[in-house]
């Protein structure tokens, strides 16, 4: 048996170490463990039922899993009588599946359900062609839990990661996302985004009877929270770099205005309500300025508002439409959409304004660009053969790649690790969200039971 390091978790080792069993007894124990696991899953499902009424986003992975790595995430063990509010292993498995880079083994195919290092026989998992194995436990700790896990490299036969995390009862799901991100980073070298959030707009009804809502949910669609709801349109949610505020456009009281709302307190500030357009808010990377589009002087131009001093600086001055500003990650440049050349194209200028150069080369419609976190590429909406699709333009090589295949795809937003782009599309005549892997891999569809979903904005990394 492989030597297992459980130094971070001595109590677990002491409590759950068992003498080795004969083969027949091991099978019996395995079955018993599986029954416990099924019971636990059933309880979790029942507990989740009230969530369904909250119009949660459901996520369906729609392809790209062929190249994904096989990994086994064994249902986490629990101490006697403990029924955690979440199926931690299930949450981790779903997170890794959504990344498109992993293909977790179905629980029903598992021949053993170890939850401590002593119970692990890596030969079992090697025979099942698993590259990696994750086991773990959830223990009561005060009013909350202590969650520990161990990650194995099955072929090398060693442990390559482990941790023990404390959480409140309500934070168990977020803890599972954090473990998923640790596993993702250990195995891919890049940070994971399971513990991030997505802002989006939903709408039900039409005209004077419509309800438009700005929501924020976890990256897996859970915990949807209403930020603001209105009978008039809401649009263009934009995250502050610290993930604590959202800027958005509201038409409440039949006026266009930009608000900045603190997600913790719910407090919001009206930051722009000029005659004409008040649109396209975009926080600078230092969080101190908000770029926006105003048409107060007759046509759409780009401005930057200092959020502290409220000083407004005009950045473009052109009779054409200039809109959809987005800052480079280092804050030195702004890309924007302009039809100054006859059709909407992407231009780039210094962040304090001045001369602009066109950077989108192909096609007769390129709009709503935003930078990848590394600043080396932008994602944008491109019209390809009359269809509006999501594209990524490599700024260094000048190479454009189309990521989507809808006809009215829009509002692309990079995940904060740059691995995926989330965007809005239409499926079955209804607005839904989709996510596509930038370098190949998984695709997802995110939809609600009823109503339209649009304008996704992926949060920055949450501290």
């Amino acid at each position: 048996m492989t030597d297992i390091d459980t130094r971070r978790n001595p109590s677990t080792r002491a409590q759950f170490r068992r003498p080795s069993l004969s083969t027949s007894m091991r099978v019996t124990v395995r079955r018993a463990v599986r029954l416990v696991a099924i019971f636990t899953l059933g309880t979790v499902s029942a507990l989740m039922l009230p969530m369904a009424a909250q119009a949660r986003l459901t996520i369906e992975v729609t392809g790209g899993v062929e190249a994904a790595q096989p990994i086994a995430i064994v249902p986490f063990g629990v101490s006697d009588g403990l029924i955690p509010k979440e199926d931690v292993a299930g949450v981790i498995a779903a997170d890794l599946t959504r990344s498109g880079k992993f293909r977790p083994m179905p629980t029903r195919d598992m021949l053993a359900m170890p939850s401590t290092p002593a119970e692990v026989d890596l030969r079992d998992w090697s025979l099942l062609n698993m590259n990696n194995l994750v086991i773990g436990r959830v223990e009561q700790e005060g009013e909350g839990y202590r969650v520990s896990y161990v990650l194995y490299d099955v072929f090398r036969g060693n442990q390559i990661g482990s941790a023990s995390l404390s959480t409140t009862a309500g934070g168990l799901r977020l803890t599972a996302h954090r473990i998923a991100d640790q596993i993702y980073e250990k195995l891919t070298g890049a940070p994971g985004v399971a513990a991030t959030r997505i802002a989006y707009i939903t709408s039900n009804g039409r005209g004077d009877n419509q309800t438009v809502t700005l929501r924020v949910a976890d990256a897996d669609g859970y915990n949807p929270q209403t930020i603001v709801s209105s009978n008039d349109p809401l649009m263009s949610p934009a995250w502050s770099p610290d993930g604590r505020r959202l800027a958005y456009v509201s038409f409440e009281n039949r006026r266009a205005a930009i608000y900045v709302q603190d997600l913790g307190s719910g407090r919001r500030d009206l930051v722009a309500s000029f005659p004409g357009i008040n649109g396209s808010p975009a926080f600078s990377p230092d969080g101190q300025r908000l770029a926006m589009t105003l048409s107060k002087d007759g046509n759409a131009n780009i401005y930057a508002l200092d959020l502290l001093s409220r000083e407004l600086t005009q950045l473009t001055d052109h009779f054409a439409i200039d809109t959809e500003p987005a800052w480079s990650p280092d804050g030195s440049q702004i890309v924007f959409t302009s039809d100054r050349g006859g059709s909407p194209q992407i231009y780039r200028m210094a962040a304090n304004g001045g001369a602009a150069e066109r950077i989108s080369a192909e096609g007769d419609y390129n709009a709503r660009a935003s930078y990848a976190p590394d600043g080396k590429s932008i994602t944008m909406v491109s019209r390809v053969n009359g269809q509006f699709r999501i594209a990524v333009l490599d700024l260094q090589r000048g190479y454009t790649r189309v990521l989507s295949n809808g006809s009215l795809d829009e509002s692309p937003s990079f995940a904060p690790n740059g691995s995926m782009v989330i965007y809005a599309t239409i499926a079955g005549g209804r607005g839904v969200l989709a996510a596509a892997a930038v370098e190949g891999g998984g695709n997802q569809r995110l939809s609600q039971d009823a109503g339209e979903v649009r304008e996704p904005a992926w949060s920055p990394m949450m501290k």
Partner: protein
Amino acid sequence: MIPILNLFSRPRMLGTAAVAATLLCVGCATTAPPPPDTQPAPTSTRPLLPPTAATSPTPNPEPQRPTYRGPWEDPSNPLYQRTIYFDYDSAEIKPQYLDVIRTHSAYLGSTTSQRVTLEGNTDERGTREYNLALGDQRAESVRQLMLAEGVTQGQLTTLSYGEERPADPGHNDNAWRLNRRVVIQY
């Protein structure tokens, strides 16, 4: 300056209309067939105001419509036609809608206490914020023409909804045609 249009004393201004149409439509794309409007563009020369409405503070004469606010709500009145449709990705006013704008300009010119909001809208194709700017351009086109017709600045407000308030939620040509519009909102 284009003279103030007054349908009461000068009901027909075809010459001016034709000149303006020519000027405004330089560079217009091929005109798409007009959408199935609920009411044809007004060509009538009869008075715009019903005998008792708008000039009198007397209680509403129509019990069926307790919220009657003005002649634009009367289907038999030319002011009832309050929607101007546009070609794709264009903010140019098509000649068939000049009379609609003039009719409202004349009413606003004679009722200077009345204010309107010009609501610009687009179809769903293209990005939302670009469409917000396009809807703004459409509303601005109508505003400029109304100013030229003598309406005062203080009577006119523009508000672009972009693609956020479609008249028809469909994802097809017919819906798109109905959604590319400016609504004169009293």
